[in-house]
């Protein structure tokens, strides 16, 4: 699955460690929100990850105290029709101003990428779309109507 960030296809240096699997001693890895909180709060012992993967039903608010320590947050879209991950991204980027990598994973299709980008994602692990499709999707609109978590200036501010 291609991983695309900042207009380039990059190698994935991260591993997601599922609940119940042993945590690696070295290398970059992410865990579920529940496991991350357990590790932080001492209910589980082990190396601390600097990546977290959010599921749709998770509360992104729970990460607020730790955002400065994280360099990757993955947001899982198990089905592309489930839009809860967009709200996660808006909260993290816009409300809490998280500035590490925000990566969309799971059922990530070309035609969701424009919305993902505006919601604050900067990396996409896509199902099929390659670099050219992602770049094309990101450039389909040159005007937006509402502020979001990306730097686009909405039309109403460009008008005045």
């Amino acid at each position, binding site marked *: 699955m291609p991983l695309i960030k900042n207009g380039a296809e990059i190698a994935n240096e991260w591993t997601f460690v599922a609940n119940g699997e042993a945590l690696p001693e070295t290398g970059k890895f992410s865990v579920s929100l529940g496991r991350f909180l357990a590790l932080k709060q001492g209910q589980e012992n082990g190396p601390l990850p600097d990546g977290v993967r959010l599921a*749709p039903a998770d509360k992104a608010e729970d990460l607020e105290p730790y955002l400065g320590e994280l360099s990757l947050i993955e947001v899982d879209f198990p089905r*592309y*029709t*489930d*839009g*809860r991950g*967009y*709200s996660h991204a*808006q909260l993290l980027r*816009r*409300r809490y101003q998280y500035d590490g990598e925000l990566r969309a994973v799971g059922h990530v*299709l070309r*035609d*969701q990428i*424009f*919305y*993902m*980008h*505006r*919601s604050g994602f900067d990396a996409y692990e896509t199902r099929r779309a390659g670099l050219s499709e992602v770049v094309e999707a990101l450039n*389909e*609109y*040159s*005007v*937006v*109507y*509402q*502020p*979001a978590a990306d730097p686009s200036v909405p*039309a*109403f*501010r*460009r*008008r*005045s």
Partner: protein
Amino acid sequence: MYRYDQFDARIVAERVAQFRGQVARRLSGELLEDEFKPLRLQNGVYLQLHAYMLRIAIPYGQLSPVQLRRLAEVARDYDRGFGHFTTRQNIQFNWVALKDIPDVLEKLAEVEMHAIQTSGNCIRNTTTDHFAGAAQDELLDPRPWCEIIRQWSTFHPEFAALPRKFKIAVTAAEHDRAAIRVHDVGLHILQKNGVTGFEVWVGGGQGRTPVIATLVNPFVPESEILDYLEAVMRVYNRYGRRDNKYKARIKILVTELGEAEYIRQVEEEYAAQRPHEKIALTADEIARIHAYFAPPKLAAKPAVSERLEAAKAADPAFARWTRVNLHPHKAPGYASVTVSLKPQGVAPGDATDTQMELVADLAEKYGHGDIRVSHAQNLILPHVALDDLPEIYAALDAAGLGTANESRITDMIVCPGLDYCNLANARSIPVSLEVSKLFADPAYEEDIGRLHINVSGCINACGHHHVGHIGILGVDKKGEEFYQILLGGRADEKAALGNIVGPGLKAEEVPGAIHRVVEFYRAQRTSRDEKFIDTLERLGHQPFQEALYAAD
């Protein structure tokens, strides 16, 4: 009316290009039908029983003559010569080929129209009072706020994959003609201490589980309304049910959480917004949008038109039409005219290409270039001089558009039903036409007075049967169509849900049953001023139910 500037025009042009690409990828097989489905839906393309259906947005129901003529052209060139106006104040075409849709969208973009978010699990076309900007009883014109909401909700990146569809309606009159209490969000524009703001109702809806909305906030000032809507939407996007599409509307979230807890969550999310997150719509932008909706310059006229009075005296049919199809205008000597799309024998809401062109011509000649679509599936000329009514009526009547039945028993809201729709269990158009036949005598119909019949061909309730004074719901019982009758629904400021009375009827039994109920009302009303719904409330449903099932 609103006119696109360079930014609006660019967004719509870019949408056409994007959708053209999506259709090409679908036709080449690169996109699977499952993946294409939400994309085409958010552009108004449904797969129906016989063909693809294209639903075109008519924001808050307003059209210019140029736009209506373009719709006529689409009907002629890409459909079978007619279009169907819907309860969301939109229009749909039932016979457009998928490969032609990008070209149709391009033609629409030329006249500042699109099909964006007319379907799919996103924020749909915002609807309003079809007499907005003209009605004597409105506080102010709600259309600028509908346009502001249209822009805010268009391609909103956070709310592009909601649990289910989302419908917003706005009214600015005490008499609610926009049915705000049966919408996901209903906004009632108010003024308090000189500040304009909104009463916010949430969680109304029809469908399988009809619910009257909850008042969530009695006054949100205009400068904050979009931020407040963001909080409402975010709570829904995060916590609305996604496990069962029939429990996914916001009304279920409000019901399951309970009103108090739902309100607490919205207020908590709203309070959590930080200053840098606020949309902060500028006063300049609010003023810029309002300027597009400046009232038309109407020449001063006396309240009574001698010309009109003379014509009425000479032609009883015309006089009746003026009694039934006019709505009081803010300006003396003017009225809003309802152009009925409910003549005998025609599917409610259908209009042919030539009828659309005629209405466009009349709007241009007599109506300050303004046309509205009502959620009751009629067309409106909102600003017409009383002096001009004889010519307008003559032209409409010659084209089959002069039926005098606004808000009368044959002015039914009817979904397309099993004749078109692949969700339907029963046909709805034929049964509505059969009922109409019994009330074809205009004098009889006028005598009955205001009476709303709403007809749906399945429990999804596109024909609003829950809020008809009389509702008719088509159901399927072992392969046979049956019709359940509901009594006592209403969609206005006294919104109420109708109750199903007794067992379903066969299609051929429905007209007679309705006729008996109407005759019972006429016998029982205290005077012609007591409307059907008021007599029903006074006497209760029981005697009406008995009349419904009484043998002939």
